[in-house]
C-alpha cells in the first residue's frame, strides 16, 4: 500500500482491478451531471461561433480551459465587444471559487502524489468536485483512490468537448438550448445529492442560510460570488451552532 500512490497516470497497464473499478464508479456516479452539462456545452459552442470564433478556436477553448460558466461568459463578452484583458480578469474572478473547493478537497487527497494532484486539479469542475468529495467522505478513513475523481472529471471533460463540438457545428441554427428544460438536469441532480446530507437541525440551518445568501447574491452580484459568499456564511453558521451546542452540553 505504501507504493500505491506513486504509480503514474499514464501507465494504464499498472492499473489494478480496484483502480478500474474506482474509475468506472466515478464515471457512472457523475453521468447525470455529464448529461446535465451538455445543454450548457451546446449553448457555449453556438454562442462562440456567433461571437466570431472559428470551430477550432471554440473547441480549443474547451480543451484548454474546461470551465463551463467562464467559457460561456467569455464568448458572451466577446460578442458584446469586451477587451481581452477584461475577459481574462473576469475568468479569474469567476473561477476563484475553485480555491475554496480545492482547499476543502485537499484533506482527502493528502496521500495522493503531487503529480496526481496536478492532474486532478485540471479535472476539478463543480460537478466532479461535488461527486468526488461526497464519495471520499462516505468512505470514512479508508484509502481514497484518485481514479474515482479521474473517472468523474474525465467523464465531464469528454462530455464537455462533445457538447462544445456539437454547439460549434450546428452554430447559428440552434435556438437557445438552455430554454428547452434539459438544463434542469443539473440542479435536479445536485438536489438529489443535497437532500441526503441534511441529517440534523444544524444542517437544516446551514442549508437554509446558504440558500438565502446564495439566492440574494445571485440576484445582486455578478459572476460566481454567490457560491463563495454562501460557503462563507454556511461555514460561520455551522461553526457557531457547533460551539453553541457544545456549550449547552457542558452546562
Amino acid at each position, binding site marked *: 500500500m505504501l507504493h500505491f500512490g506513486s504509480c503514474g497516470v499514464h501507465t494504464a497497464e499498472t492499473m489494478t482491478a480496484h483502480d478500474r473499478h474506482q474509475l468506472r464508479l466515478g464515471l457512472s456516479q457523475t453521468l447525470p451531471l455529464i448529461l446535465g452539462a451538455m445543454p450548457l456545452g451546446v449553448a457555449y459552442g453556438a454562442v462562440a461561433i456567433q461571437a466570431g470564433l472559428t470551430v477550432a478556436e471554440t473547441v480549443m477553448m474547451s480543451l484548454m480551459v474546461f470551465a463551463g460558466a467562464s467559457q460561456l461568459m467569455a464568448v458572451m463578452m466577446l460578442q458584446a465587444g469586451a477587451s*481581452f484583458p477584461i475577459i481574462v480578469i473576469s475568468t479569474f474572478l469567476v473561477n476563484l471559487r475553485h480555491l475554496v473547493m480545492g482547499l476543502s478537497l*485537499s484533506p482527502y487527497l493528502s496521500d495522493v502524489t503531487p503529480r496526481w494532484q496536478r492532474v486532478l486539479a485540471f479535472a476539478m469542475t463543480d460537478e466532479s468536485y461535488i461527486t468526488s468529495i461526497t464519495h471520499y467522505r462516505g468512505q470514512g478513513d479508508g484509502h481514497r483512490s484518485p481514479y474515482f475523481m479521474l473517472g468523474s472529471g474525465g467523464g465531464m471533460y469528454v462530455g464537455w468537448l462533445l457538447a462544445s463540438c456539437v454547439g460549434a457545428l450546428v452554430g447559428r441554427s440552434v435556438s437557445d438550448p438552455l430554454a428547452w428544460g434539459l438544463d434542469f438536469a443539473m*440542479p435536479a441532480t445536485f438536489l438529489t445529492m443535497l437532500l441526503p446530507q441534511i441529517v440534523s437541525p444544524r444542517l437544516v440551518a446551514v442549508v437554509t442560510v446558504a440558500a438565502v445568501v446564495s439566492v440574494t447574491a445571485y440576484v445582486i452580484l455578478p459572476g460566481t460570488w454567490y*457560491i463563495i459568499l454562501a460557503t462563507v456564511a454556511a461555514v460561520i453558521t455551522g461553526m457557531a451552532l457547533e460551539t453553541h451546542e457544545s456549550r449547552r452540553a457542558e452546562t
Partner: protein
Amino acid sequence: MRPQFIVLIVAMAVVTYVTRVSLIGVARQFELHPLLIRALEYVPVAILAALVFPVVVAPSRRLALPFTNAYVWAALVTAVTFMVTKRQVPAIMLGVGGLVIARALSGA
C-alpha cells in the same frame, strides 16, 4: 486559428488552472488546523445549496414567483420523488421530463 485568440485562450486556461491547483495539495504540505478541517466540512453542502437554490428560485438572475416559475415545481417533483423512492435517476427524470413537457405545452 488567429494568434490573438490563441493568446486569449491560453491566458484564460492559465488563470483557471491556477485557481484549481493552488490549494488542492495544501493538506499534503501542511498539517491543517483541526478547526479549519471542521469548518471545511460545511463547504460541500454549502456549494450544493448554492448550485440548486439560485437557478431554481431566480432563473435569469431575477427572483421568480413559484406560481409562474416552472423550475420551482420541477424541483418539488424531483425532491418528493427522491424522498419517496430514494432513487436518484427516476427523481431527476421526472423533474426534467415534467419541465420539458410544461415548456412545450406553454410554448405551443
